Structures are given as C-alpha cells and as structure tokens.
C-alpha cells in the first residue's frame, strides 16, 4: 500500500490524539477498525462483521415491466392463445415455438426461444422460476410499482429493503463497498438510513483526474471533503459520499479490470455482469451487486424487441454463471432477476401489451433448488384483465434474507412472510 490517504487507519491512529476532533470526519466503519488497532488492514477487505460469511447476492432488474407470459410461455393454456392471437409464442415443436424442458414443474410451460440461455441454466439444475409473483392491490405505474419492489413496502415509501438489511445487520456501520450498483444512479433498494451503494458505469474513471496535475494536488484532494458532522443534511450526504468515493476508488478500479473467464455476449447487461463477475473474483468485500436493463415497456409491436431483450438477458446470465463456476465462486453467489410488473394477459391493439401485474421471478445459483415454484396464475380468473398473484414478492425476499443472507427477515420486512422452500 503506497497510496497515502489521510483517512486510512494508519494515519488515523498516528494523528489520533492531535486530531481528536477529526474522529467525527472519519467514515464510521473506519472508526471501528481504529478502535481495534491490532486488526490487520487486510481484515477490511475479507468479510464484514455481522454478515453471512462470503455470501453474495446479485439483483438483476428488468425495467419497464417484462412480459412474463411471453417469457415463460403457458402453452398448455388455451386461453393464452385466445387472448394473444398475434403475439403469442407458439407451442413447442413448431417453428419459433416455445422451448420445452424436462425440469420439475415444467408441464404445460415453455421458454421463449430467445430465452435459451436461461433455459440451459434450468436444464443444468442451476436455476428456478417462481411463478405468479406480485403483491396485493397492484400498482400499474412503473415508478410506484418499482418503488414498492425496492422498498418491500406496499406504499413504496421507505428505505430500500437491502439498505435496511445492511442497516440492521451491520450495526449501522456498513462498509462503503458492501453494495455496488452498476449504473449512473443508485437504486432505492440499496439506500438505507446509513447505507449507500458504490455505483459507477465505467470503472477506469472512478477517480479524480485532477490528481494528474501534480503530487501536491493529489495530496490536497485527500482532505477536500470536509467534516460531514458539521453540515446539514444535503451537504453532510455529499461529504460522506465524497469520502466513500475516495476510499473505494483504487480497489474498485483494480477489481473491475480483470479479464472474464467466460464468453460474454456483449450488450449493456452483459457488460455489467462481466464487471460484477470480475469484482467477485477480485474478492471485494461487496455483498450485494445491482445491475439493471431497461426497455421492457413493450406497448407496441413487441415481438422482435422482446426477443432481443430476452436473448441478452438469458445469454448474459449464462455467461455470468459460467464465469463464476470457472472461478470456483458459483456456490457463493445467488442471483435474482425481477421486473416491476408483468403485462396484461390480452394483447392490445398495437401488437403489444399494457401494464399488468404478477409475473415470474428467476433465481440462479447452485444453491437454488431447480424447477418451477408456486402456482401459475389462472388466465381466466382475472382481476380486471390482469393476473392474480399467487406468491407475494416479499416471500421471495424473506427466503433470500433467511436462507441465503442468514438474517431475521421480519426485522427487515417489518412483517413475517412465509418462506418458499427454494434455497437449499
């Protein structure tokens, strides 16, 4: 470690008495480390106290409302073909027909042929589909429904569910790299009272370029943030974020630049998952990664557009999974794929589908029990044209929290939800 950082533990200890008042300017997680001065510096990067050892959770968000019925195709239900005369995926065995699978619970269901990457994960015993996932009184606004999913709260107004998880399990002192989101904004799901995610689009610019002017500038930059405790809400937030940025900069850049071990197909989601795989391989202390792909709001002429999206999602997930397997880390990583809602059962007059309700959700990893879980919603018993959900998404959250992240789900979700028996 040649990098000199005034907020580093070594400096903090050396200057501890002189700068007693500056204790408050040090990010909270470093203060703790300083208190246990004998802890080797490396301890900072291996694990996070209070969190399940070495377990990683990856969230893939499909923004816009993915059409679940054309992703996992209920070809055994005649109503599907009646309600979607021109945009349905034809039965298995026909041209461009759905792909049948022998996995448990797949009778009458097939995969969109473009979703073949995901199907191969299913066939390989590395993935599960939870059917009919939604919530009561569905909200058909993209933004409100996304907020509901992110917060785990029916009115959509609170911190993010994963932010609360970090707040609860880390005694309010999360590592600034505990959560990493790829993208230009940080998703609500990762925002807690104390928790914020590191997020970026391009790792090589994840640093201040003014330090290239000369070494004096580099030094001056170390102290540029000011004291977060001597500021009002917004400025305090800016100062904390600036500190988090400085601390995580070099680690993240090195990690994300590792070459992949599998062949990624290209595209936005693929690039993001490739970086996540690299960061997992570099053993960052990150426990939650968040990636997103938009464009699923298929109101018109959806067939080609939807197929292109599914192809990228399926193939990227497959490559991601293969990379993790090659690393020997696949057993540490659970991936969840969700969208804010599905789409209406009947197609609209524009060769597309309008905002709907329940839809399948996907879990990937060797710890997942392969197959289909939950009940497929009826296509005839509808709620004003929309599916009635059969599994509450918070049941999935509870399963992830309890069975994977090994934490009390009720403390995070403010309620007890019945778990699904999907994580071994």
């Amino acid at each position, binding site marked *: 470690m040649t990098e000199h950082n005034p907020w580093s533990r070594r400096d903090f200890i050396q200057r501890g008495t002189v700068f007693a008042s500056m204790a408050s300017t040090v990010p909270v997680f470093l203060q703790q480390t300083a208190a246990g001065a004998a802890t080797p510096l490396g301890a900072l990067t291996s694990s996070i106290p209070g969190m399940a050892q070495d377990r990683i959770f990856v969230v893939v968000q499909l923004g816009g409302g993915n059409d679940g019925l054309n992703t996992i195709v209920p070809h055994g239900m005649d109503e599907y073909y009646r309600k979607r005369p021109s945009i349905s995926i034809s039965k298995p065995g026909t041209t461009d027909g759905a792909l049948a699978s022998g996995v448990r619970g797949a009778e009458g269901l097939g995969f969109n042929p473009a979703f073949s990457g995901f199907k191969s994960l299913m066939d390989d015993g590395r993935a599960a589909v939870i059917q009919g996932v939604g919530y009561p009184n569905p909200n058909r606004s993209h933004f*409100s429904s996304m907020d509901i999913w992110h917060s785990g709260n029916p009115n959509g107004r609170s911190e993010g569910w994963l932010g609360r998880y970090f707040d609860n399990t880390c005694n309010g002192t999360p590592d600034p790299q505990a959560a990493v989101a790829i993208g230009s904004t940080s998703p609500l799901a990762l925002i807690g009272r104390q928790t914020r995610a*590191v997020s970026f689009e391009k790792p090589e610019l*994840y640093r201040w*370029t003014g330090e290239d002017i000369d070494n004096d500038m580099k030094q001056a930059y170390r102290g540029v943030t000011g004291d977060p405790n001597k500021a009002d809400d*917004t400025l305090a937030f*800016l100062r904390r*974020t600036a500190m988090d940025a400085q601390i995580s900069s070099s680690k993240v850049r090195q990690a994300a630049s590792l070459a992949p071990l599998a062949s990624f197909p290209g595209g936005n989601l693929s690039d993001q998952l490739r970086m996540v795989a690299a960061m997992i391989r570099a053993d960052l202390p990150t426990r939650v990664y968040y990636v997103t792909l938009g464009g699923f709001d298929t109101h018109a002429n959806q067939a080609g557009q939807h197929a292109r999206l599914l192809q990228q999602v399926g193939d990227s997930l497959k490559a991601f999974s293969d990379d993790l397997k090659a690393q020997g880390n696949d057993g540490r990583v659970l991936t969840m794929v969700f969208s804010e809602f599905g789409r209406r059962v009947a197609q*609209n007059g524009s060769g597309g589908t309008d905002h709907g309700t329940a839809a399948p959700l996907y879990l990937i990893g060797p710890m997942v029990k392969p197959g289909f879980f939950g009940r497929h919603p009826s296509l005839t018993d509808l709620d004003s044209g929309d599916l009635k959900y059969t599994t509450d998404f918070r049941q999935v959250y509870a399963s992830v929290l309890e069975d994977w992240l090994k934490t009390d789900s009720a403390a995070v979700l403010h309620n007890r939800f019945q778990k699904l028996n999907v994580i071994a």
Partner: protein
Amino acid sequence: MPRPLEPLDPKDFGYWEAHHLLQRAGFGGSPEQVLTLTEMGLDGAVDHLLRWRSVPDPVADPGFKTDIMRPPTDEERQAYRMARRADNEAALEQARMRRQAAQREDRQQMATARDWWLTRMIETSRPLQEKMTLFWHGHFATGYRPVEDSWHMLKQNELFRNNATGDFKNVLVKGIIRDPAMIKYLNNNQNRRQAPNENLARELMELFTLGEGNGYTEDDIKEGARALTGFTFRDDDFVFNSRNHDSGTKSIFGHRGNHGADDFVELIFTRPTSSTWICWKLYRFFVDDAAASTEQSMAVVNEMGRQMQRARYTVDPVLEALFKSKHFYHPTRRGTMVKSPIQLVVQACRTMDLPARNVRRLNDACATMGQSLFSPPSVKGWDAGTAWINTSTLFTRQNTLVYLLTGREPGSNPWDGGGTLDHDMSRLVSHLPDIPRRDRPKDAATYLARFLLGTMPDDYRLNTWADLARGRDLDAATVTRLVAIITAAPEYQLC
C-alpha cells in the same frame, strides 16, 4: 408566522441575493453580471429575468432538417408492397438500407440538437427562459428513443421555449396532447376507439397535472383514454382522426358526457390539485429539491396555487411572487440545492467565463452524470436532489470541471505539467485590486472559494488550498490549480 409569499424588502436585496437569484432562476453568472443584477434592485432584477421576450436572443438555430424521418410517399409505399409480393429481396434490402441511413442521420441530428441546446443555455441572454424550457422538458418528459424523430423532439422543445413562463393549461397541457413527440412517446397514436391505449391518459393525470393518486381512479384513466382516442399525428402535424375517436358517453370524475380530449383537460383542471401539483414541482425546482410536504412548504405551495388559479394557470405571476418573496431568499434556502448535471456544466461556464470546449463531450459527461437532454430516463423525468449524487457521479462531476478548466480529456495520458493551459484563468482574480499577487496565497484561496462555493470552507481546507498557491505567481496555472481543488469540494455541487 409570516405570510407565505411575503415580499422581501427591496433594501435587503444585495450582491449575494442577486447571486442566489441568478443561480436559481438561471445558471449563475460572472461577478460582473451579478453586480449588474444587484444594481437593478429586486423589482428590476426579477422583471429583467421574467420579461425575457424583450431581451434580444442572439443564439441562432443551425437550420435543422425537418424531413429526415418523413413517412414514405404513396409511390414508395406501393413500390415496397410490390417488392414484398414479388419477394424481390434486392428491392426490400434497398428499402431497409434507406431506412437505416435515415435513422442514422436522424440520430446525428438529435446529437447536434443536444449540443445546440446546451450551447444555448451556456450563451443565452435569457436565462429564465432556458431554465424553464429545461423544467418543462423534465415535467412533460419525452425521450428520443421511442420517438425516433429529432424534428418532433425539436418542435416540442420549441413549444416549451416559446411558452416558457406562459399558459400552463391552455397552451402547454393542451399543446402537449397534440404534440407528435408526446403522442408517439405515450402511444396515443395507437389509442383507438376499438382498442384504447391508456398510457397518455394515465400520465396526463399522474405526472403532468394532478399528481399520483390525487383525486382520480383507474376508471377515470380508462374513460379519459377514451376521450383521447383519435388524437394522433400525420408526418409533422397533429391530426384528429374522428374515425378512431370514441364518441360515446364517458364518465370522468363522475361527469357524464360525450367528452373529447379538451373536455378531459378542462375536467382535470376542475380538480383541487390541478394548481398545487404543478406549483409543488416548481417549488422543488426553484426553491428546495428536498422539500417534504411540511406545514411551511405546503403553505407556500398552496399560496402559489392560489396565484396560479387567479392568473388562469399562467406561470409568470407565480414565479414573480416567488422570486420576490422573503421565503425564496431565506438563508436556509441558499446553497442547499444539488446542481443538476446541466446546471453544473452551464453554471461553471457562465460564472468563470470558461470556453465550452467540446460541447459533445460535455453532453456525454452529463449523460454519465444521469442527465441526457432529450432522453430523460422515463416519462417521470429526472429525480432531482441527492438522487443525482453517488460516488461515481461525484467523480464525473469533479472530472468534468477538470476538463473544463484544462481541456484535458478524462482518461488521457498523465499530465504534462500544465503547460497546455489555453484559457487564462488569472482573469478570475486579476480584477481584484486588493489581492496581493504572491505573498498572500490564502487571500486568493479565500476569495475564489467564496466566489465559487457561495460559502466559506473551514480553515483546515483553506490552508491546504492556499499551500497550492504558495510561492507562485497568481498566473493561469496557479489559479487553475486553486479552482480545480475548490470545485472538487462537496460544496461545489450545491447552488
């Protein structure tokens, strides 16, 4: 408790009040511009900003093409049909290539338009007009991707610019439901009697006029969608297609009748939140991006709403009252809003008189920071305030300033010692007679910090920054170093 929009005493309008006004109602300005505004006094300054029509507008439009994405002519359509029937692969391929070439050209024109608008904001003499154009773009958010017609996006931009502080109800809302870009964006061209599409009806109430859940039901959306059927466009113009219009009886907010689209708008504007929702958005745009609905903020917003109703939904008088109010200038509301990426870039150029460098680069940087003009993330527009900020966007913000100051592109090779500085930053301090040039670096650091941050940083940082100038002439290189570090401070993200 003071009256919600109690006017500021004109005597209390000084340099820093003018500085605040110019940042919020515009994009900030050089010390000389702030001084000019100060000398106009409160009424004069606000009038100057609001009466933008009387200020000459020197930024010319580069002459955009109107028909890159024109629909095919009847002959072309027929030729295409014949080629399909005859399975004439070569002809079909040619048509496909033509279409792709047009799309490519159109994307280029959209990028040019993006640069043109950013340049306009940097150079305009009518800052409030441009700021409000940006406001409306975020309010009636429409993205180029699904619209795929740069001319339609520009026409919409012109609607916002021409009516920047004008009539919300009769011009902007009734204009937006006739706007080809919006009609395409929210699929109203596919909203037909036989197959209604609810997208525009929903967002019209949820996002544009009433606010989510404020006094309408899912049924009102369905019925409103029927009222909007047949509102579509042909080539570049709005058309009402009566064959696709549902002329049956609809019940909207309990009012039964053969409502058309304008009736639907009129009915919306009888709802209680039709004046307060837009004022809430204006309040969060101009006064407090983190505003919660507290008693105090709601009192101001409700008073703005009353003024809006009295003015029959014209925006001017509401902004006038706001920009002249004590509430607006209260110390707790200064330097408290997070600059949007556009605000960051435009304000940096305007306050320091920086060259805009490569405007395309600046737009790319804004996109990385989360704000791409003509491409808001969704119909909801941009989430402002702290949502702009995370560790990554913070680096991009700091690095964009380094680029503006030095012309060095992020990611290029290590610095060559600062010898390439092409912009004389020393002008920022050279006009100050009482800044000693060499022996008191802390004075220079203090002045620049106050000017750029609006507040005074702590002594620890001031001393560190002064060290960067110690023993050096206050020349271009030294001032650039000082400004680079000051603009990396968290306070620089606020306005």
